[in-house]
């Protein structure tokens, strides 16, 4: 008797389970994607591969080489060399070793100049380790060209500053020189 009841109970449970699977089979949209051909919708907040935005107005990347991001990074991903000085500073090397990166967002939050961003690009897999070593040419939006232009902008600004300083010094010297004879003649 108990054998029959358990058989019936088992049979009912099979029907129940099949009813649920049937509902799911016909009633629900499938959520899988044929990945390389179909792409997922990625949230704009996605923490993917980094880039250094290029500032068209200023003609340079925003980064001033302050190393705050490198200090905030728990795993030492970021290394850089600074160029320029004072108000006109940037980096001529900025390397991120993504093999060590946790995509934790701490570097982004540390940057006071909004100079480093994360993109929605997520495909990091490659057969070559070197690919995960991002140099500034790969990081800067606009590539090597943007880096070159940044360099020129900084150099021009520095030259201008130096010229202005020289001119100011010359003007001062001239003023001093022209003041001297007057003083001399006055005596």
């Amino acid at each position, binding site marked *: 008797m108990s054998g029959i009841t358990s058989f019936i109970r088992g049979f009912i*449970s099979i029907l129940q389970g099949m009813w*649920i699977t049937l509902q799911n089979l016909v009633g629900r949209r499938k959520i899988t994607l044929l990945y390389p051909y179909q792409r997922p919708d*990625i*949230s704009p907040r*996605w*923490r993917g591969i980094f880039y250094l935005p290029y500032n068209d107005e200023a003609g340079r990347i925003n980064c001033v080489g302050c190393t705050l991001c490198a200090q905030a990074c728990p795993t030492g991903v970021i290394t850089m060399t600074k160029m320029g000085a004072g108000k006109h500073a940037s980096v001529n090397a900025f390397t991120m070793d993504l093999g060590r990166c*946790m995509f934790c*967002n701490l570097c982004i*939050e540390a940057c006071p100049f909004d100079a480093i961003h994360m993109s929605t690009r997520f495909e990091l897999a490659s057969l070559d380790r070197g690919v995960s070593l991002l140099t500034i040419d790969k990081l800067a939006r606009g590539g090597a060209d943007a880096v070159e232009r940044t360099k020129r902008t900084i150099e021009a600004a520095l030259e201008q500053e130096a010229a202005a300083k020289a001119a100011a010094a010359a003007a001062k010297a001239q003023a001093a020189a022209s003041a001297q004879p007057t003083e001399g003649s006055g005596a």
Partner: protein
Amino acid sequence: MTAMQPAVGASTSSDMTINLGPQHPSTHGVLRLMVALDGEYVKSCRPVIGYLHRGLERMMAARPYRQSVPFTDRLDYCASLNSNLAISQAIERIGGMAVPERAQYLRVMLCEMNRIASHLIFFGTYAADIGATTAFLYAFRERERLLDLLEAYTGARLTYNWIRPGGVASDMPEGYAQAVCAFLDGFLKELDAYDTLLTKNPIFRVRTEGVGIISPEKAIAHGASGPVLRGSGVNIDLRRTEPYDAYPRMQFDVPVRTEGDCLARYLVRVEEMRQSARIIRQCLREMPEGEHWGKQPKVFRPAAGEAYSRTESPRGELSIYLVSDGTANPVRVRVRGPSFVHLSMLHELVRGVKVADMIAILGSLDTVLGEVDR
């Protein structure tokens, strides 16, 4: 070689020692079980751990306080927001930081979302352990939608690092509350159906009912926590007994079952998902306006001392102990993880059961090896 032999009491020539893992799908990660078998019965079982050891405690201690948060993502990677909360709370306690009220609600909401995601992994993998592949696929489909929501908020799908000392890294994106509510509406309905798929199934019941019974005394003696403890009839939930953040203002039930078997632990977790959904709804409804991040000191050098924070992660009590000597780095970070404690009960639970039941028992403990090995 002798050191590798499991400690079998009376070993006879009919015994066979086999290795389960470290790449066995039922061990949920890189766990190796050295099992001495007498026919189909388990005579002894010794878990070998450490395959995933990264020295996270030491790594956290070697860095400034606030940089230790992303490392906690790698503890219990199925519920990394809960681990973020544990370390953030410890850092707040040691540094005397306040958390704005809105951030408290955001934290609770995120943690409960992560709890559902984590329990869905349990639900799916447990069903797969027992042999029900369909439920596994359904659970992961629901989880996928939940991860999409977490991705929209935090930008990551697994290692979020979004709950930070002093608050939450960002506020919700626009229209997020509606998206979460829409998900929950659908999810709860689906959950009932999925639950039917397993709990109404006689095979699943036979495999889990009365299997791996943990008595309340044993659970307490081993330091079990979370659903394992509550499945044994001990009503302790840190969200209730030592509430933190916005939990004191939340209304929810703590599911407790007295059977102490695998089925009880399963049912507790399923019910917890429903309660988590309730908590998320309350958070969204009652969340006050305001800041998502409190005032942060520029240089964080807490005074010498210690702090201990206890949180209820999906697996049980996840606690973090910090010692400060007044410098920028902690002296010691210690993680008390639930999975490690639960895994230490395994050898007692599986003595004398059949191999298939051992898998059912291991699955019902829901251990995550990232946190066992650290």
